[in-house]
């Protein structure tokens, strides 16, 4: 009898142990990690983890294009009224069906003035949401609102019943969504463990478990990849790219991002209110060289405009001003500084890929034409405060990202954003016009002209579209690295 029991226990152990051995686990190393899984906070770091367990109405793809998410299709009834047809039979992880009630619940909650939700402004143009029937939702906007779809792609739909039962705090501790992975365990500062959702509406992931580990130090992240502990890492430091390329089983993959690295010049005060001085600074920079040295040639040289080539609103007729130190010296003299000038550039350290290296390289090139540049590196919180009070002057280096639509980064050059270090009335009018119509052709025309104005007036010197550099094991197949830093892992295969 006793033997039998032992045998039964042994068999039990074997049965649980065997499938576990055959399990496929994907390990991912990330640089920053979130403190909470609440969709209301934490920016893209959090959103990246939240979207593992949930979906938006609209899905933004790895290359910033848009496609159907929980809504399988949609149409505009009028310029201010959109109708979304929800996918039928989509289940939350607790088995309840996702319907229009959940969509309305989520959007109403996000838009509630009493809710603090970090990405609230992304859908701020919505006037009201109506559930027509279980699978149809209508969204009314205050004005024609062309960026609605892109905004919706950043709002994960939350399950109404579960949220009402456990509250936001309970949801953040154990999120339940419609997404490709299910929550298993979160160890703050260490790792997030998930399992594949075998019933995922867009096809179950082809591996069983997912562990996202935080490895803050770049060199350790690379070591963890090379030693096989993790199969994908984000943010490979540029100087460590060769050490990955030297190894046989791992490789570097990089994509252009929509983050535009620019040097913003304070045009509102002397000396940079002088257009010749601004142009001198622009033509003194050898972008090719900096891209090669500091970004491993993986950056995209901005074409004399704010947005990257892949962003809606790109103006194909513009080119960057040619690198010409002799002309820079001449312009400097014409601007009234034949003996050169002293300037200060503010930057952050470690905020963007190779940021201080790029700043130092620019300063060196300016030095060559007689612009003696001091670089002042600010800590993030101090930067944020000076940013609010508009004291990042006379020159600051910053990355603005567009997530694919010019509306999102041109906004920083309008007076309403309280971030602009210039003022241009035509630009202001065009900005409003471009976000008040849903006709793409008309919008493109407006953005084209806005890019031209910025090219001529140089409110910022446009440097690079920064690349995102990932490292991956060659066992990982069919994975598209994301240009917006959100992990998209549900489609890849692990050999």
């Amino acid at each position, binding site marked *: 009898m006793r033997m039998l029991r032992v045998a039964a226990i042994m068999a039990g152990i074997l049965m649980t142990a065997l499938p576990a051995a055959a399990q496929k686990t994907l390990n991912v190393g990330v640089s920053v990690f979130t403190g909470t899984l609440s969709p209301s*906070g934490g920016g893209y770091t959090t959103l990246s983890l939240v979207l593992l367990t949930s979906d938006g109405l609209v899905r933004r793809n790895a290359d910033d294009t848009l496609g159907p998410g929980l809504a399988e299709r949609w149409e505009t009834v009028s310029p201010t009224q959109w109708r979304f047809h929800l996918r039928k039979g989509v289940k939350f992880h607790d088995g309840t069906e996702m319907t229009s009630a959940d969509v309305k619940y989520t959007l109403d909650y996000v838009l509630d003035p009493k809710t603090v939700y970090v990405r609230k402004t992304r859908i701020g143009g919505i006037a009201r949401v109506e559930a027509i029937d279980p699978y149809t939702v209508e969204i009314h906007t205050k004005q024609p609102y062309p960026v609605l779809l892109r905004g919706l792609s950043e709002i994960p739909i939350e399950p109404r019943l579960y949220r009402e039962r456990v509250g936001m705090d309970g949801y953040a501790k154990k999120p339940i969504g419609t997404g490709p992975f299910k929550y298993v365990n979160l160890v703050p500062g260490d790792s997030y463990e998930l399992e594949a959702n075998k019933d995922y509406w867009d096809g179950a992931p082809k591996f069983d478990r997912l562990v996202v580990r935080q*490895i803050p130090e770049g060199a350790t992240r690379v070591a963890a990849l090379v030693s096989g502990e993790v199969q994908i890492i984000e943010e490979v430091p540029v100087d460590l790219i060769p050490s990955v390329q030297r190894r046989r089983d791992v490789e570097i993959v990089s994509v252009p991002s929509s983050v535009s690295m620019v040097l913003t010049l304070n045009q509102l005060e002397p000396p940079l209110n002088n257009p010749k001085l601004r142009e001198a600074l622009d033509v003194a920079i050898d972008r090719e060289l900096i891209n090669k040295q500091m970004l491993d040639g993986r950056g995209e040289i901005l074409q004399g405009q704010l947005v990257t080539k892949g962003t809606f609103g790109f103006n194909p007729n513009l080119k960057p001003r040619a690198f010409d130190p002799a002309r820079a010296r001449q312009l400097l003299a014409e601007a009234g500084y034949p003996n050169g000038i002293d300037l200060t550039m503010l930057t952050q350290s470690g905020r963007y890929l190779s940021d201080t290296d790029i700043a130092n390289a620019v300063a060196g090139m300016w030095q060559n034409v007689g612009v003696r540049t001091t670089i002042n590196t600010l800590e993030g919180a101090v930067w944020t405060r000076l940013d609010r009070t508009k004291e990042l002057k006379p020159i600051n280096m910053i990355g603005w990202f567009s997530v694919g639509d010019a509306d999102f980064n041109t906004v920083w050059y309008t007076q309403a954003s309280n971030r602009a270090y210039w003022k241009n009335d035509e630009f202001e009018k065009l900005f409003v016009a471009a976000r008040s119509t849903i006709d793409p052709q008309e919008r493109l025309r407006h953005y084209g002209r806005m890019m031209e104005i910025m090219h001529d007036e140089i409110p910022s010197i446009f440097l690079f579209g920064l690349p995102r550099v990932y490292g991956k094991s060659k066992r990982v197949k069919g994975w598209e690295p994301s240009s917006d830093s959100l992990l998209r892992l549900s489609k890849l295969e692990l050999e």
Partner: protein
Amino acid sequence: MLSYIARRLLLMPVSLLLVLGIVFLIVRITGDPVEIYLGPEATQEQIDLLRSELQLDRPLWEQFAIFLADVLRGDFGTSIQHKAAALPLVVERLGATVELAAIAFALAIVAGVGLGILAAVRVDRPADFVISSIAVAGQSMPSFWLGILLIQLFALDLGWLPTSGRGTAAQLVLPAVTLATFILPNFVLVTRTAILEIARDPFVMAARARGASEGRILFAHVLPNALNPVISLAGLQVGRLMGGAVVTESIFAWPGVGRLIIASVFQRDLPVVVAAVFIVSLTIVVTNLLVDLAQATVDARIRLG
């Protein structure tokens, strides 16, 4: 003895409050947690809402009064980034740091004192020269660099140990060695000097004259008397150990309090910073007390003086 302990215990809250007050002021004055949390796209409406929720719209002195009253009741507030009570958050992460620091500390003392004794016994001979040179070199080696080198050698080239993370004993080895190396050289050098100094004392000569063996002189006479500077060094090193843990935790992705403090300082997440600094200060103050007590036990001059 009891009055000595009582005196020390009475001073403890004063130093802790002083530390918390300084932390409060520095974190509050140099940045705004709400703006950092909400990012550049936040509307004024959202900023105002969160600010009043967190009582950040009140004058600084009033915030400080609320803060003090809460802390005295044992309430450190709620983390804005983690949306959770600050103290449990810190306590949850404390285990990892204590585990790492305790092992590194033990390693440093055992190896440091052992090597120090060896160097003193072999003074001015090759062994002393090698140990002392390595100790001096170790003292000037940044932990950051050492950590990366160890990963390179033991995780990548030899493949014996994992690079980072926490969970298995193997994952503890590299961070513990790195952190131990941060304070170990001090133990070597201080032990060596202390022994050499005591060895010159007349009572050692007297023991030798009595015909006591060298081993007996070392372990029965010299070592107990050389212990005092080593104990007081150990007390001082606890503070450095906590500082070193911050760097070590970052390199090895060790989920401890050190990294939590760093992240929270950058985010100006005051409740977490204060709770963490409180716990760390408490650890240091208590260890210093223990060190003083140990010294008083070992050395009657302190106890009576």
